[in-house]
């Protein structure tokens, strides 16, 4: 089974609006790969479709991961396959505490067919230990665990919680959707350190961002540029620097010229 995330001619829309118009992209397992692009290019839609958001209709193409076309799987099955999406706008769930949510998620990952869930559930002491350690690394106060999921959290708290979830669920491929949006430098550093601790042979990362800023902290080996629902250019880290310096218009004009 390959840990590469392979996207072939992916097309998707929301309502009548075509957003992805044939995305072709391979994210190699264990690498850091950035997707950059101007607002409205379809970057966040791509992240949502990878995770299986029910609001988007996939009208064509395939997404392969670990030997399966994941478009046929429910969002929870994709998660159990090792995919993780760090949300741009994490959702609040009043009444469900961070600790209960995390335990439920971990236990869902540990569940095995034909086995009593009580048998595969994480022991309480082990869970508490992992939670405490994760929160400490992300400089989160212990009272966090008792708060309702994302309810009344600041932007920085929400993003740290996303990384805490990633830390505890140990995905093999993480998609970071505009994780830098709304973060001050301090929070950005903490979040990026959290990602860097996990990135490596065990976990590939697809970083979706509008700005180069995040890529100073999470350094990609590969950069792809998305415009108008397609990947229009691929390169190394130098491509990100070039875009930062010249903006997207330059690339748009060049593409128009070659068309």
């Amino acid at each position, binding site marked *: 089974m390959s840990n590469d995330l392979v996207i072939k001619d992916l097309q998707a829309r929301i309502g009548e609006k075509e957003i992805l118009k044939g995305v072709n992209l391979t994210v190699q397992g264990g690498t850091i790969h950035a997707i950059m692009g101007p607002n409205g290019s379809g970057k966040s839609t791509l992240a949502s479709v990878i*995770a*299986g*958001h*029910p*609001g988007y209709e996939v009208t064509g193409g395939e997404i392969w991961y670990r030997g399966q076309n994941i478009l046929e799987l*429910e*969002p*929870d099955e*994709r*998660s*159990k396959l090792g995919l*993780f*999406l760090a*949300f741009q706008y*994490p*959702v609040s*769930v*009043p*009444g*469900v505490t961070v600790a*209960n*949510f995390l335990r*439920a*998620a971990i236990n*869902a*990952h540990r569940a095995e067919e034909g086995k009593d869930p009580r048998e595969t559930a994480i022991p309480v002491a082990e869970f508490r230990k992992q939670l405490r350690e994760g929160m400490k690394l992300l400089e989160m106060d212990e009272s966090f665990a008792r708060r*309702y999921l994302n309810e009344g959290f600041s932007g920085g708290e929400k993003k740290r919680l996303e990384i805490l*979830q990633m830390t505890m*669920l140990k995905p093999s491929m993480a998609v970071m959707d505009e994780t830098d949006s709304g973060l001050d430098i301090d929070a950005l550093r903490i979040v990026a350190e959290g990602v860097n601790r996990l990135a490596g042979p065990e976990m590939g990362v697809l970083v979706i961002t509008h700005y180069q800023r995040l890529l100073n902290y999470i350094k990609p080996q590969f950069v792809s540029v998305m415009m108008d629902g397609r990947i229009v250019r691929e390169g190394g880290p130098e491509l990100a620097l070039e875009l930062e310096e010249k903006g997207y218009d330059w690339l748009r004009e060049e593409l128009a010229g070659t068309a």
Partner: protein
Amino acid sequence: MTSLTLKELSADAIAALSRQRGEPAWLTERRSEAWSFFAQSGPPEWRRTDLSGLRPEELAPTTGTALTLEWDEALAGQGVTLKPLGAALSSHAELIKARMDTAVAALEHKFSALRAALWQDGVLLHVPKNVAAETPIRVRYGLPAGSRVTFPRTLVIVEDHAQVTLIEEFFSGDQPATALAAPVTEIFAGPGSRVRFVSVQRWGDGVYHIGGQKVVLERDADLEWTSVAIGAKVQHIEAETALKGDGSRVNWLGATFAGDAQKLLTAPWLRHIGHHAESYMEFRTVVNDTGYSVFDGMIKIERESTGTSTRLEEHALHLNPGARNDSIPGLKIDTNSVLKGGHASTSGDVDEEQLFYMQSRGISKTEARRMIVMGFFGPALDTIPVEALRAELEAAIEAKILS
């Protein structure tokens, strides 16, 4: 009682039985009077409670009882009285005579009158002045064996500066035929007293629950009330907290779950009479399958009150498009001196974005829905002071989510 059906019973038969049981004359008289009222009145005109499936005249009351009392008997040593109301008639006759039916009127409608005429099961709870009853007291009513009708009656008197926690439950299995439970609960909270009250309605299918509940708060009395309603086929509960004394206070939480074809109506009223009283009411409702619930809440601020602070919230969650919830909150203000008043109401489906977010972490849709609903009821369930009861209610609610 005999196994006569209601249409075969008479005022004479009821009076004879009352005398035979050695009840005081005033009670015999009240029973007869109530029966006459019942016999003469038509069915109540409740727009949102459908009683067409109930044929009370065919029900046959028995003398059987189905009452369980659970409490730490050390409380008796502190002076607390907890006993079946029938037995209490010999020890506390004057107290009962003076208080019974004074909070909730007996001759209000056909079913309240029927209850006043025929009640068997009942409880007297008396907490003397300055006594703090620390451990929860549980009163559980069922359907007497072989019977499909019961009229439970709870009378609670909490004297000045006393404290008590009471859990009142109505419980049975599913009934093969229509059954009727028409209980009444009257709680008198004296000056400076603290009352924690949990009322739980979890009858089985087939039961019509037509209930009245009222708590009267004297000066500086403090009430925490949690109302849980998850059982029965049809429920019609008229409940009231009367903030009679100055500086009295209530925090009232509700959790209602109507699944299958249940029709559950609750009409909770906050009545402000005293000065500077504070009230907060928050009812949460979940409807599933073809369940139907009605929240008919009301804040009534009487003319003589001043400085009232009050807030009412009602939130409903729909698990199935066939389920329905009507929310009819009302506000009647007869004074021009209100300190603070507010109201909020929401109603909607389980949020798709919440489900997606939870699913994206590996949690199945079913489990995500379960967690969202349990979280929705969390504030009310968290107030239940007996862990075993809370676990039972959680299990019952989970079963209703998955149905």
